[in-house]
């Protein structure tokens, strides 16, 4: 673990600066380490010193400070101290409070294991579960209602629809939640967001078309192969539980963390971490949520690698994955993904769409990308002279130009609604620059 790898764990540069001042043994008492666990006491503004513990296997941390920022400066400070001076944390037996924390974490894992055992004893198959049949029937009814609503809004017209208050869409989304189809509720909630800015009509119609295709496909659920059924269920909101995944055997590999993206809405944050398997030579996506400033389960950083096993969620083109603990977090070995020209990538993507027409994001590793500036705009050009549209959410386009220095680059990112959202750059001298 290197100090610079801890950078991306820090919620802000300021938090990192504060944490760095705590990366000194003299700021701590009762320091120790055992296995992947580190602990110590740090005097803060309270009368009692804060008790801080970190599990370096997944960067989970516990601190008694009142900070709502996660990880707090004390946990980050301890990680930085460990990275810089590991000898300042003597190897000791786990103190009681750390042992308790470890036991509670293991307890949670065991409870998950217990769930798997039960599942393995005969209740694993979602299709065979009468409760799920009932749920699917309820979803079907909800989708019939949604289809009528979609027809109504086209009768009404987008111009009038765009004038509707947010509550109008929220009401429809709530009915989908009642119908136990939260995936569809999410798509409805996203509709008003697409009704702004240039080209909003096109975007809204695409979104409406996507919803319609999903509900029509779902209405014929029984007719599809099993993995496509899984895909549709997942899109509609029936998710496979992590304990079910834990029971499956996964793919063991060294998984390089190549990109990270976080999105927030109100107090909910979603993190997307892209991994690349060195030997399996495939991408995996870890999706994680936190609410109200809480922590993510996956605290891995671009530039590191996980040596361990991951399991893909079922689906027709498995992409989303779950990490089976324990994994060993180590320094990245360098990104060796074979980049594609833009035209090759578009062919690969079109093929993927022919298998899974509901693909919303797709990992893009593009090589030979030239970066140009025109007044205030940055333009990416493929080696074939085709424009690679940049996603409007990408705010660091001038960094692409600065790094390129006029030479072609290799860029990793997400292909999202026919636009590229870059997450990292590989320079001509094989330096990896994280853009997350």
């Amino acid at each position, binding site marked *: 673990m290197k100090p610079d790898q801890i950078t991306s764990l820090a919620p802000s540069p300021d938090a990192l600066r504060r944490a760095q001042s705590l990366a000194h043994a003299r700021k701590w008492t009762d320091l120790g380490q055992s296995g992947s666990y580190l602990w110590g006491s740090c005097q803060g503004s309270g009368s009692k010193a804060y008790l801080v513990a970190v599990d370096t296997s997944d960067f989970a941390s516990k601190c008694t400070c009142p900070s709502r920022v996660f990880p707090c400066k004390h946990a980050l400070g301890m990680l930085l101290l460990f990275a810089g001076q590991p000898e300042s944390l003597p190897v000791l037996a786990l103190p009681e409070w750390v042992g308790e924390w470890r036991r509670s974490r293991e307890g949670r894992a065991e409870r998950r294991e217990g769930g798997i055992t039960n599942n393995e004893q005969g209740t694993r198959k979602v299709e065979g579960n009468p409760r799920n049949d009932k749920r699917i029937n309820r979803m079907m009814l909800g989708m019939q209602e949604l289809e009528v609503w979609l027809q109504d809004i086209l009768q009404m017209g987008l111009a009038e629809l765009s004038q509707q208050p947010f509550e109008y869409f929220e009401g429809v989304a709530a009915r989908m939640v009642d119908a136990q189809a939260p995936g569809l509720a999410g798509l409805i909630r996203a509709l008003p967001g697409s009704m702004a800015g240039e080209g909003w009509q096109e975007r809204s119609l695409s979104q409406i*078309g996507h919803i319609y295709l999903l509900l029509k496909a779902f209405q014929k659920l029984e007719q599809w192969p099993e993995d496509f059924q899984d895909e549709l269920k997942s899109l509609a909101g029936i998710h496979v539980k992590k304990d079910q995944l834990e029971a499956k055997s996964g793919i063991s590999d060294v998984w390089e963390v190549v990109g990270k993206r976080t999105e927030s809405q109100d107090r909910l944050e979603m993190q997307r971490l892209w991994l690349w398997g060195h030997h399996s030579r495939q991408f995996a996506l870890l999706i994680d949520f936190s609410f109200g400033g809480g922590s993510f389960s996956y605290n891995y950083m671009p530039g590191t690698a996980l040596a361990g096993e991951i399991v893909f969620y079922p689906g027709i083109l498995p992409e989303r994955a779950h990490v089976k603990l324990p994994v060993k977090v180590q320094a990245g070995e360098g990104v060796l993904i074979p980049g594609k020209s833009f035209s090759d990538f578009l062919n690969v993507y079109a093929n993927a769409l022919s298998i899974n027409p509901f693909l919303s994001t797709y990992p893009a590793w593009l090589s030979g990308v030239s970066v140009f500036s025109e007044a205030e705009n940055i333009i990416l050009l493929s080696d074939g002279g085709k424009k690679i549209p940049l996603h409007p959410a990408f705010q660091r386009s001038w960094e692409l130009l600065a790094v390129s220095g006029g030479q072609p680059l290799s860029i990793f990112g997400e292909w999202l609604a026919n636009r590229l959202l870059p997450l990292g750059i590989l320079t001509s001298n094989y330096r990896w620059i994280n853009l997350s």
Partner: protein
Amino acid sequence: MSTLLHAATLGLNRQRIRWEQETEWSDIAAAGTSPAEKLLRVLAARQLAEKAAFEPESILLSETEAAPPEKRPYLDAAGAHIMYQVIHARSRRLLEEALGLLVKKEELLSPEYLPLLLDIADELEVDKKLLLQACGERLHWLAAKRPAWLIYLPLSAESWKTGSLQQRLRWFVQQRAQQPETAHSLWAGMKKTASSDELIAFTQLLKPHLSEADEDKLEPLLDHRRKDVRTAAFPLLTRIPDTELIRRMKKRAESCFKMEKGVLKVALPEIRKEWERDGFSVFSYAASGLGEKAGYLCHLLACIPPDHWEKSFQESPEKLITKALNSKWAEAVVLAFTLASIRQRDAKWATELLKTIFQNSKLLDVIKPNVRVELIQLIPVAERDRLFIKAMSESERFDTLLVDFSLIIDHDDMLSQKVAWTFYQKLRDSLIRRVERGDQRFRYLLYELPNVALRTPIGLYPQIAALFPYELLGNGSYRHYLEEMLQTLDFRYKMYKTFT
């Protein structure tokens, strides 16, 4: 698609789609049982086709010249990690310090940081030469690509003819420093066509390298119809020794500022109509607590170089200041002496005045921090250090000094080793005294401590850190400020270790 888009926007209730004319989609629409279902089927297929058959636009762009190769290597990951934090801290001093270390290390800032740096460096007034040294050729290569960053590029004579006002101003400054004769011609040409705002901007640029040759530029501006132009020109004229303005002021002061039998006699001047041109009705000294007439007195005396009184009255600055303090209009006179010393950059007077200010806390209300800073900066470093250390030598004096923190912190220079060390020792002692007394009042004044930490010789950090052990920071109300101070020192210390 435009027909479909039109219909979908207006609504099928208002706009019917003639599917027979939409040959591309008519087959897909055909299986729909209602107009809305037909359109939904087409939208579903269309969004898929748009994704699967995405046809990127072909563009022909002229070849961009690649950035010149760099002779020095880029920073390693540890250094880049430090620079990431330095840039985000947005402090000119810290940034220049880090860039300086980078230059010494003969390494370059990683190019991904250049856009943010270019966005903030001009606003922070970072030394552009240093910036180029630390960032290499790519800085200019990149700056040329974006209009907002053109300010980082070297100027040419063409900038004066066709450039923006900012570029013209920069060219004028450059010429003034390097070729004063050319700058003089530029001024003459500019004055014929410039708007009032442009004239103000150019006038303000005369301050550096101000000389007697500038009197001809400035004196006519005192008759300008716009007050802001007059206000910009007047203080500059008072900075040039022996201008016509100063001679006029000396003459006017004869009647109200005299030495009679070793006693300084000060009276308020009677303002005449023709005096108004010389700023009497423009400048106010109310913020320093002076009334209107005392303000006139201050304005008059502040234009006269202080050494004029030494020669006229055959008295030393020390004695003259003492006599001024005993005069009827003491505060107006001392403020005038202070302003005049600053304008004439008179270190001898500045030193004596600063000693007086140290001794008379009443003067702190009259001579405001920004004025004091200018005064401090005139004093030779050795003398300044001696004054600071003397002021800090008494415990109670130091506590008072904290109230007037600006004496230590508001000037921009690096503290000497000796002053810094004395300061931190005294700060610690003072804190302990205040904690014992339960005195919380001055806590808010400590917010400037991180700035002191930025100007502390970094070699002192281990000793300073030992002065403020974590237990001392404890639960006291000062903890936050001290922590900030120590964090800043700690960060700089790490930066030095990484870069040297």
